[in-house]
C-alpha cells in the first residue's frame, strides 16, 4: 500500500476540504456530504471484499440495513440511547450475521458467491419486508439519535448536526486508516494473496477459507457501522435499505471509484451522488443518462476514477487496480501484483 506523494497530498487536502465544508456550504450540501461520507465507508468495506479478497458480494447491503434495524429496535421511544451501547449492538449484530452468512458463502466461489450473497440478503429483505411489527415495507423510524452523557451533560450529542458531521468525518478517516492497517498486516497480505491466486496461497499452507471468512466478517461489520450512521442520519430504515438495488448501487460506486484502492470508492460515492443530483436537474430521463454513464464507465474507465486520477498525476494506481480487467484471473502471480508500484503490471 505504498502511495504516491501526489495522492497522499490529494487525500490530505480532501480531508481538509471536508473539515471546512460545514462553514462554507449550506445546510443542504452539509447534509449531502454526510450521506456521501457514509456511503464512502460502506463502499470501502465492500472494497475490502471485492478489491482485496476477490469476493464479489451482491448482498452487502444486508449488513447496512440490518444494523439500521438493530438501532431502531434498541432505541426506545422515550429518549436517546447511549452511543456506545447502540454502536456495540449494531456492530455485534452485523458481525454475527456476517459470520453466519460468510460461513456458508465462502465455500462457494465466482458466480455462485455472487448469487449466494444475493440469496442471503434477499432473505433478510423479505424477513423485514414481512415483519408487521417492524413496519413491513414502509420501514420504521428511529426517533432519537444516540448520545453520550455524563452526569446529565451531553458530551457527544449526535442530534446536533455539526457534531454529527464531524463524527461521520472522523469515522470515515478512522475506517480508512483501520482498513489500511488491516491490509498492511500479515493477514492483509494473505487475503490479497487469495485474490491473486487462491490455489497458490493454499499451497503455501494458509487455510484460505478461514481468511476469506474473517475478511467477510470485517467487511460486514464495517458495512454495519455505515448502516448505523445512515440510520442515525435519516432516523429511518426500511427493507429497501437491504434490497438488491442497494447492494448493486454500492457495487457500482466501488467500481466507479476504482476497486482495490479504498480511497477510490469514496470518490466513487462522491461522484455518483453528485451526478445523480445534476442529472436529476437537467433531464426527466436521468435514469437513461445514468444507464449510458454506467456503460461508459465499464467500457472506458475500467480502473475507475482512481485509475483516471493516477493516470493524470502520472502515478500508478495503488496495488490491485490492474486486476480490474482480468478479475479473478488466477494466472496473475501475487509477486507481480505486489510489484505493481514498481511498474510491473501483469
Amino acid at each position: 500500500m505504498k502511495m504516491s506523494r501526489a495522492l497522499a497530498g490529494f487525500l490530505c487536502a480532501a480531508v481538509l476540504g471536508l473539515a471546512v465544508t460545514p462553514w462554507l456550504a449550506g445546510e443542504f450540501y452539509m447534509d449531502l456530504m454526510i450521506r456521501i461520507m457514509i456511503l464512502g465507508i460502506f463502499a470501502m468495506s465492500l472494497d475490502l471484499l471485492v478489491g482485496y479478497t476477490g469476493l464479489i458480494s451482491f448482498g452487502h447491503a444486508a449488513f447496512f440495513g440490518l444494523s439500521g434495524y438493530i438501532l431502531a429496535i434498541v432505541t426506545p421511544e422515550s429518549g436517546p440511547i447511549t452511543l456506545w451501547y447502540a454502536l456495540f449492538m449494531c456492530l455485534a449484530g452485523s458481525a454475527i450475521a456476517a459470520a453466519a452468512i460468510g460461513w456458508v458463502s465462502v465455500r462457494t466461489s465466482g458466480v455462485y458467491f455472487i448469487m449466494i450473497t444475493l440469496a442471503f440478503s434477499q432473505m433478510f429483505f423479505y424477513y423485514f419486508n414481512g415483519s408487521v411489527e417492524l413496519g413491513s415495507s414502509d420501514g420504521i423510524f428511529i426517533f432519537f439519535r444516540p448520545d453520550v452523557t455524563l452526569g446529565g451533560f451531553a458530551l457527544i450529542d449526535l442530534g446536533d448536526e455539526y457534531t454529527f458531521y464531524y463524527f461521520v468525518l472522523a469515522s470515515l478517516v478512522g475506517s480508512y486508516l483501520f482498513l489500511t492497517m488491516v491490509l498492511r498486516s500479515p493477514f492483509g497480505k494473505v487475503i490479497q494473496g487469495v485474490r491473486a491466486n487462491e490455489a497458490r496461497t493454499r499451497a503455501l499452507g494458509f487455510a484460505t477459507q478461514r481468511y476469506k471468512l474473517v475478511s467477510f466478517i470485517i467487511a460486514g461489520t464495517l458495512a454495519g457501522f455505515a448502516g448505523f450512521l445512515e440510520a442515525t442520519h435519516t432516523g429511518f430504515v426500511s427493507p429497501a435499505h437491504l434490497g438488491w438495488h442497494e447492494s448493486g448501487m454500492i457495487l457500482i460506486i466501488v467500481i466507479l471509484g476504482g476497486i482495490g484502492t479504498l480511497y477510490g470508492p469514496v470518490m466513487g460515492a462522491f461522484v455518483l451522488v453528485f451526478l445523480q443530483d445534476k442529472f436529476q436537474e437537467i433531464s426527466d430521463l436521468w435514469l437513461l443518462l445514468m444507464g449510458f454513464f454506467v456503460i461508459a464507465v465499464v467500457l472506458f474507465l475500467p480502473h475507475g476514477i482512481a485509475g483516471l486520477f493516477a493516470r493524470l498525476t502520472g502515478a500508478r494506481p495503488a496495488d490491485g487496480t490492474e486486476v480490474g480487467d482480468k478479475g479473478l484471473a488466477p494466472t496473475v502471480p501475487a509477486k507481480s501484483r505486489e510489484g505493481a508500484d514498481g511498474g510491473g503490471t501483469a
Partner: protein
Amino acid sequence: MDLATFLIQVLNGVQYGFMLFLVASGLTLIFGVMGIINIAHGAFYMIGAYLAFWLTGVVGNLFLAIVLGIPLMVAIGYAVERLAITHLYHRDHLYQVLLTYGLILIFNEAQKLLWGTGFHGVRVPAILSGAVPLTDTLVYPHYRLFISVVCLGVAAGMYVAINRTKLGMMIRAGASNREMVEALGIDIGKVFAIVFSLGAALAGFSGMIGAPISSVYPGMGDQILIISFVVVVIGGIGSIKGAFVGAMLIGLADTFGQVLLPELSSMVVYALMAIILFWWPQGLFGRRV
C-alpha cells in the same frame, strides 16, 4: 389440506415452474456458453411482453404477434451483443453485472418512451379461452395448460438442438474449450452472437407468451430477474437440465411455502437456495467455473 387441494397445488407449482424455466433457460444458456452474467435478462422479458401487447394491438392476434415479435427480439439481442456485450468476454463478472445493469436502466426508460407508463392486458386467444373444471368452485384455464405444453416443447427443442445439431455442437464445444474451438477455425464470435440473440429471444418469448396471464406493466422485468437467477444457480449455472430441475423445485417450494408457511413464504425459496449451495456449491448440475 385434502388430496384434491394438494394435487391442485402441485399443478400450480409445476405450472409456475414451467414459466420460470422458460425465462431461466435463456439466462443459463448465455452464461453456460459465453460466461456472461446478463442481469438485463429481465429487461428482455419485459420488452417481449410489451411487444406482445403492441403487436397484438396491431395485428389482432397473439400468435401472429409472437411470430412477428421473435425476429424483433433476436435483432435486439444481436444489436446489444455487437454493441456492448462483445467487449466483456475477457472481463471480470463484476463488469458484466455493471454493464448489463446499465442496460436495464436504458431499456426501462426506452419502454417508458415507447409505450408509456400505463398497465396493459393482452387477451387470451379465443380458441384457448376455455377452462377445465377442477372442483365445484375452481377451474383451470386452457391457456395455462397451453403454456405448460409450450415450455415442455421448448425444453425438448433445446435438448435436441444442443445435443443433435451442428450449432449445438459448436455451442457445447465453445462452452468447454474456447481456444480449441477457435483453433479449429470456427468463428467463436459468431457463435456467441447467435447464442446471445437466442437467449434474448427466449426471454422475450417468455414475456410474450406469459403476457396474457402476467399483464404488462413497467418494472415487470425486475421481479422475474432475481427469481430466475435463483433457478439458474440452484440448477447449476450453464446447465439446461439444471435450470429445468431448479425451476420445478422453486415452483413447488414457492407454492407450498405460500400455503404452509405464509409468514415466511418469500424467504422459502432463498433458504432453499442457501441450503442447496451449502451442500452443492456448484448447484445441482453445475460444473466448476
